[in-house]
């Protein structure tokens, strides 16, 4: 029963929090660029407006894929709040990621095709790092379930500093922030147009936006696990991490997927493996 209530809280609070974070993100970015920026609630207004637009698609698979993406993202957040198995949460999240790519590939559009291929490269980059992070958590707690993390009396960060850095790497890619925003860009007027999102429009784009909010919450939830012993420090850690994300996003130019693959597979995996060796030895 308690689990069910938690899941419902997660499903409702997920998009609300995610939307607020998206609004904040834009405000802080504007502040960096000495602009006023939109209201905090702008993300919600945008999505509400998208839902009111005429439904237009290139083909029916996009409708299917947009819905499955949203449902899988919500399910993964629900599973997170149900204190489920970390690997399983990740695999459920992957359902959404795969369907987003397949929907983009279903349209015969050069932009969305290129975006889809690049999104696959992003998955290729972050997936192994995330799995190793979960393995690290398993080595510390003796279980893959989130429940075990809350029973620690020392924050995970103390045992897994390098894995946290690697996680940060992976999450920047997962959230498609610069310098890893090559599967979709925030602004349409570039070589890629909107990449993997090009052919989604109106209400279906709104679904994808909501799914993205869920993913943001999931990602920050994972980060939160690293300081599970103290709520105040957890908040500080999350704030610092997300601020760093925004800073990186604003100061970096988009790189290429080759650069990313080499960087992540060498540096990210390298850091993870070193940290894992400490854990195995410890």
């Amino acid at each position, binding site marked *: 029963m308690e689990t069910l209530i938690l899941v419902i809280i997660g499903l409702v609070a997920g998009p609300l929090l995610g939307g607020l974070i998206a609004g904040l993100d834009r405000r802080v970015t504007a502040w960096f660029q000495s602009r006023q920026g939109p209201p905090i609630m702008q993300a919600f207004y945008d999505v509400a407006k998208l839902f009111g637009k005429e439904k237009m698609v290139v083909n029916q698979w996009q409708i*299917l894929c947009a819905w499955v993406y949203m449902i899988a993202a919500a399910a993964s957040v629900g599973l997170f709040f149900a204190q489920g198995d970390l690997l399983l949460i990740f695999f459920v999240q992957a359902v959404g990621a*795969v369907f987003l790519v397949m*929907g983009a590939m279903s349209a015969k*559009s050069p932009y969305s095709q290129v975006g889809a291929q690049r999104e696959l490269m992003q998955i290729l980059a972050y997936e192994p790092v995330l799995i*190793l992070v979960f393995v690290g958590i398993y080595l510390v707690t003796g279980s893959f379930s989130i429940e075990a993390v809350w029973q620690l009396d020392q924050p995970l960060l103390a045992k897994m500093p390098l894995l946290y850095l690697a996680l940060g790497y992976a999450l920047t890619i997962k959230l498609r922030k610069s310098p890893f925003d090559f599967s979709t860009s925030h602004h349409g007027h570039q070589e890629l147009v909107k990449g993997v999102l090009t052919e989604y429009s109106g209400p279906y784009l709104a679904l994808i936006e909501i799914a993205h909010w869920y993913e943001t919450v999931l990602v920050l939830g994972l980060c939160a696990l690293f300081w599970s012993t103290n709520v105040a420090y957890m908040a500080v850690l999350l704030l610092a991490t997300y601020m760093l994300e925004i800073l990186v996003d604003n100061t970096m130019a988009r790189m290429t997927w080759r650069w990313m693959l080499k960087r992540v597979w060498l540096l990210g*995996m390298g850091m993870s493996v070193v940290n894992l060796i400490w854990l195995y030895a410890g």
Partner: protein
Amino acid sequence: MSNLLFLLILLPAVAALVCYFVRSSAVRTLTVVATGAILTIASLALLGQGTFEPLAVGSFLGISSDFLVTILDFALLGVIFAYGIKHKNLLIQGFTLAQAVLLAWFELVVVEHAAVPALVGDQLSLIMVLVVSIIGSLICIFAIPYMKEHEEHLHLKKSRQPRFFLFLLLFLGAMNGLVLSNNILWLYFFFEVTTLCSFMLIGHDATEIATKNSVRALWMNSLGGLAFVVGMMLVYSKTATLDISAILAAGPQGALMVTGIGFLCLAGFTKAAQIPFQSWLLGAMVAPTPVSALLHSSTMVKAGVYVVLRFAPAYVGTLLSDGVAVCGAFTFVACAALCIGQSNGKKILAYSTVSNLGLIICCAGINTPLAITAAVMLIIFHAISKSLLFLCVGTIEQAIGSRDIEDMRGLYAKYPRTATITIIGILTMLLPPFGVLMSKWMAIEAASSNIYVIVMLAMGSALTVVYWARWGGSLMATRAEGAVPEKQAALIRMPLTVLCLGAVVLSMASPWIYNSMLAPMFNAPPFTVSLGSLDAATGSFAVVPLFIVLGLGALYAVKAASGFRKVKIVAPYLSGSNVGEEGTYIGPMNGHVPFAAGNMYLGELFAEGKLTPIFNALAVALIVLMLGGAL
């Protein structure tokens, strides 16, 4: 009981002979369908009777069955040797001759011929019998219309189908014998029968390339046979018994015996086409599609992993076990990487098979109850999904005349049924809550205590997503209003539908499959089942809840998508220079410029020609390490 066993092993052989000698297509169709039905029922009946202790077979027409197997063994080696001479291949001749000499010495001098019960049925055997009998039968049924069409393309004067179905059916019998054997000499005999059958089937079309590839398959598997004989002799020298159950019950017995088991694993590696032996399985795709489906999903390669898995209790806790795990994990990641660079659909399936077999072998090497559960689950679900995908590619190939995934773009527009089944097949290989992913989840959780293995599994898992997702996505397209419905022969549609439903429904039933068939294998079962969820100390996989949530979600999404005719359909965005005809835009001089997009195959990173020699060298080093580790 023993009647069922006779039925499962000998009926396919008898049916095979009927197909060969009665050259009537109606009789052949009837024989194959009836055999398939009887095998399916018999395998289920065997399951219903439960496991059985080792059991003696007795004599046959007054000749002891052990003696008969020995005679057939040498006859088989003779036949293989003759093919070695016919194709002027010294490797085949050498390996076969060495096997014959060693076997003769073993049989005549070393072995004290005590009575050994020939057959046994434990959980693993019964599960394997189900996989072989049901999936194998469906593939044989699919082969009937497929081979008819195949021969129409070839314009043969005289049908070669009798020969084809002879070996196809014989294969099923040999596989059932292999997984039920308790006498290691019987295991060896059936192991060799599958070698011969696969050689015959790969070379079936008798083209130059088919012959070349079949000869390669034969020499690699003869090497496996030699490793088997050596392993068998080493094990016997220590344990002094041919009884597999007794060998397993005794556990590891010192360096010499474990080295013997190491050689048996090497034999399994060759049969399961682990790197560096992957080339024979890749070459096998020149054969007609049902052969590839049979080799890849339920038979040949599963014989290899079965041997490694069967002897797992005999090397538990040794360095050999770690070696097996590392070799398997290496094949898993290396073949997933090689798969990225492929656009040939059958080759993608082949590499993915080898990769998954690597994962099964890796699990056998990790050798904990959780890992063994993962291995057996993966055998079951991989067999279903992979056979389905092979049959899909075969159907697509006969429809569009190509097996390249770039040519399959937008397949849904013309062949909606085949495309949908293929997409479902791909999803069952890739995503939760389906069985293959669940096994992979178990494998990763089981491998977490071994840093070498877990790093390789993490990388392989990511590579796997890439090659499946892009294939699935490229099949999707719009169907024009009022397009002609797709035609499918009944005997093609039946296996496709059954396998597709099987992949989904059995995945959902996996907690019960685990409870009834896998849990009894262990003293301390790794999972408990509650509310349709598999719970272990290390984590839990909520199978049924996930099926309900994602299933309802998917149903809703399908319903939303089926209303698409009410939604405005627009052309893709082309910077405002669209033209009426699809796939072109207004280019320079107001000309209509066509465009196309292709998948990224990452040639600079994942080129097959560049990577294969490196992977082969690494794999040989790992195998040497593994065998040396046993000493």
